[in-house]
């Protein structure tokens, strides 16, 4: 591992930027952004801070900047610097004592640009420092918004997420973050599917209805009716003759 040329690695640690457009087909971006917001709505930047201390007392430091862009297509990107020598050392120490690696972002609104974007307070999330170390700083950060575009939560997971106790020998593995960034808006829960159901019922009805309509009652049972009629006629014509016979006898 250690034999990999350092210069080659350095090349690849250009601050990773990962943009993930979250335009979920089903979600409601249409309504909340609709009216006054133009396409040229310029994004804004909020700090992403992190904290990892051996004594578990939060001391948040800058990790990077989140470029948020509201509007029809909510998007987010992250620019972050690499970890310093000291940070790497602390992170490994924190991981050794099973400490936590916490991140936080300020509460902001993605759509509201008149009022101050920043409300008081932060949204915080954490991941075990050891899993961050063992995954070689590859983490997935997800930002959650609510219906009106406020950021309501942030989450961080590492892939893989387990702490197996494997030693990360190479300091270089811990220099730059390999971050996947997503922003998730609430999905719209489905309504009862009445229209589709009625359509299906109609089709079924048609299928079932047609063969019955083709044959009418008379068409189906004409032979029975005919037979019955003949029988009736025969019996009615037979009876008077029988009566007549009796009369004749008496």
């Amino acid at each position, binding site marked *: 591992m250690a034999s990999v040329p350092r210069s080659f690695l350095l090349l690849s640690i250009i601050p990773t930027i990962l943009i993930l457009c979250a335009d979920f087909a089903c979600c409601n971006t249409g309504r909340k952004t609709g009216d006054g917001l133009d396409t040229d709505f310029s994004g804004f930047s909020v700090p992403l801070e992190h904290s990892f201390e051996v004594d578990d007392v939060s001391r948040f430091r800058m990790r990077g900047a989140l470029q948020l862009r509201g509007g029809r297509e909510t998007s987010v990107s992250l620019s972050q610097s690499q970890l310093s020598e000291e940070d790497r050392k602390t992170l490994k120490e924190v991981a050794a004592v099973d400490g936590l690696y*916490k991140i936080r972002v300020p509460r902001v609104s993605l759509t509201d640009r008149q009022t101050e974007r920043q409300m008081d307070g932060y949204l915080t999330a954490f991941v075990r420092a050891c899993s961050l170390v063992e995954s070689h700083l590859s983490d997935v950060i997800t930002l959650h918004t609510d219906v009106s575009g406020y950021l309501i939560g942030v989450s961080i997971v590492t892939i893989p997420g387990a702490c197996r106790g494997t030693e990360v020998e190479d300091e270089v593995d811990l220099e730059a973050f390999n971050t996947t960034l997503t922003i998730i808006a*609430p999905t*719209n*829960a489905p309504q009862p599917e*009445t229209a589709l159901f009625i359509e299906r019922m109609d089709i079924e009805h048609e299928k079932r209805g047609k063969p019955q309509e083709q044959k009418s009652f008379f068409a189906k049972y004409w032979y029975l009716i005919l037979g019955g009629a003949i029988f009736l006629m025969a019996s009615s014509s037979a009876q008077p003759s029988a009566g007549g016979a009796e009369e004749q006898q008496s």
Partner: protein
Amino acid sequence: MSKPTSLFVIFFSLFIMSEAVFEDQVGKFDWRQQYVGKTLFAHFDSHSQSSNKLFLATDKNIFASFNSRTGDLLWRHVDKVGPEGTIDILVLHGQDALMVVGGGRLLRSWDTNMGGLNWEAVLDTGSFQAACFVAIQDTVKHVAVLKKAAISLHYLTNGHQKWVENLPDSDTVQYQAVYSGGEVEVYVLGVVPNSHLTIIAYSLEDGEIIKSVEAPWLSSVESSCVVIGQGVLMCVDPATLALYTLPIQAEEAPQFNQILLQSLDLEVSLGFQPVLVSSQPHPARSPISEFFLQLGPDHHVLLQLNADGYTIAALRDFQPAFLVSFATTGEKTVAVVMTPKNETACDINLFSADSGRRLLDTTVIFPLDLNGGKPFKLYVHAFLKKDDSVDYRVLVQTQDHALTFIQQPGRVVWTREEALADVVTMEMVDLPLTGTQAELEGEFGKKADGLFPMVLKRLSSQVILLQAWLAHLWKLFYEARKPHGQVKNEVTIETLSRDEFNLQKMMVMVTASGKCWSRQSLFIFVWSQLFGIDSKSGSILWKHYLENVQPNAVFKLIVQRTTAHFPHPPQCTLLIKDKDTGLASLHVFNPIFGRKSHIAPPALPRPILQSLLLPVIDQDYAKVLLLVDDQYKVTAFPSTKNVLQQLQEMASSIFFYLIRSDQGNLSGFRLRKDLSTERIWEVVLPTEVQKIVAVNGKRPNEHVHSQGRVMGDRSVLYKYLNPNLLAVVTESTDAHPERAFVGVFLVDGVTGRIIHEAVQRKARGPVHFVHSENWVVYEYWNTKSRRNEFSVLELFEGTELYNSTVFSSLDRPHLPQVLQQTYIFPSPITTMEATLTEKGITSRHLLVGLPSGAILSLPKMFLDPRRPEVVTEHSREENLIPYAPEMPIRTEWFINYNQTVARVKGIYTAPSGLESTCLVVAYGLDIYQTRVYPSKQFDVLKDDYDYVLISSVLFALFFATMISKRLAQVKLLNRAWR
């Protein structure tokens, strides 16, 4: 194509149909108890001598009739909840019961025989003050209703209004009482506090006379005046310590006549407001001239107004006396006095009202329950015996809303615990093992100490078992000789033991904090009660009275130790928290016997934010309860050294969450080694947009048997079974029907990660939801279509499990797949719960409480987001019902057939020892207990199982084999010889 589909549907309906109860099963596994609530008015049916009816009007807006011999409910009318249905007054005359309902909104007349409504009249607006019957020439024909600004007279026969009169100066004068003594006039008494008394006389044929009397000492007619004798108003003034009399009917301007209490040698207890008690036995006649004056909390005097109408004679002094009352039968009026006898009993005696002489042989003993409330009110039913002496029965209302009916000489005929009409939370606890079973268990529990003692112990326990078995045999033999009816089948605490399948349990119920405001002593008693009820019979085995529980308290009942840890007794803890201040207290008790535990709960000086039961157990097998206060400090209970050590060891893996719904804030904390906490995550839902209405985790005792679902193509779809998942339901602050929404968030309680976030548009609460296994079912009101809808969310990991051995919230990086479907539900609902079984093999049903009082057992199979729109081979293979937007309500799904549960508030489910059986308790106004079998009784043989046939066939086959084997051998032998 269509034919298989319909066949398939028929198959399913057949499969589900067979759930209803058979006629002979009614009442076999279920019981219902009907309650009415706290009694406000009670009357005995005095219409006929032999009648044994009792009429009650209660604070739950219920008018009910009881059989006074048995205490059984004859009929009950449940009116609307809230001020619209409050019963202002209940008066009884002959066969008519008159009621003013809803703060003077309606006047109703009921037929007391059948409980039918005779008529109902809508009254003019105005708050109700008083009502009384009005009689002319000994017949009661009218009823007068006094409102704040008007008085109206109604015919008793049809409720039509005879006349209505506006009261003069109603903005300054407070009209408080109406009186009729059988003459042609009705008197309305009003007062301008501390100034004067106004008397208005209305003749029945219309016309008014106004009189004004100076009375600067009088502040309220209602609380300090009564009418006695021939229309004499008697008032008591606590300031001057005097009685005032005033003849109401006097022609010329009357004057109050003052009689100092000192002149009668009477003394009022310090700080006590004296109270008068009088009686008007018949509305067509004037009240009796004797009355009680209460001078202290337990001091009453019987006084008599002399014939001159000015002087008063003291007949008898009663001290100590808790409660007094008058009762009339025929022409005789008696005074009933309750006096304390000793710590555990009270005496009730009759006294002749006109002389104050004690009537012989009339003592009734009322047993005082130390775990109940004190007597609060007496309702006496007096009647004449054959020898013309007075006999009586007493209904005693105690502070805990219980009603006790007593007959001479002190036999408690029945008791009704009306506090159970307001159960707030409950738990079911397993019953303890029998002595012999416990002995065996105990043997295994003990530490091994050598081979020889172990053998001895084993032998001794075997001997005990043998003894018990012989005793059991003897009992069987002995009982078999006795006639059938004499075999006692009563449940007592001593005989309680677990049955074979653990179907009988102890129900521990907590009632809402009740209030009892006593006028006499000006104390407000606030309390709550704990009940222990046998789930098989519904009989109350114990009760415990908790004093000084704030009216807005919230309760949480926690089972810290079950009965499984013999010889340690089971232990329950009730956390009582004041909703406003957050200050909490703990009540630790034994759920089987109701006794308070000797374990001292920790003092909790700071408001408690959260309580959580850890799976950590101390050396006595009690689970540890953690209480988090407002400074995020943690208190452990029990807090022995052992526990603290364990907590320190696993502190880093103890996470908890806090929710501040007023700030929309959800935050997670981790425990530190020194029992302080650190905040590790935070999610904020802006309160401008939506507010959190409910948060629900999963039930800790829930088991899920299958990890996944087998699909049509034989692959497995694994469930996302996160035990830390929280379902958070929000409602939008915007109530406009187009913009209103209901939000459902699934949040991991350990990491704070939002697993799923969905918004139900055009929806409004109240939201009822159940969170279990890998699904959430919620119900809401669709504002656009104006209907109730059910939605189901299911979470799946996919076709591969991330880590199949253990679930950790910290190591589950991939989000689950979420499936959702919505259905129309044709009824509003009041509460919802899911069935629960021992191992979770049985399919789940949802138990839905409907406002009609029915409890619907809805198969979860109908709420499955994988129900296909178009039926395919795979979906049929999987037994998925084709999607239909409307959820059916089938009457055979009602588990309580015709035993409706009025105002159902909650449903509690508990597993039994049988995997197929789930115990259900629905509570509200009534309590209903039953068993449900969501997958039918697959592990139980039917009652009519033919043992004879099966065993005879078995034996026949066995012998046939033997014989044929023998024959075959003979044949073989013969062939060998050939």
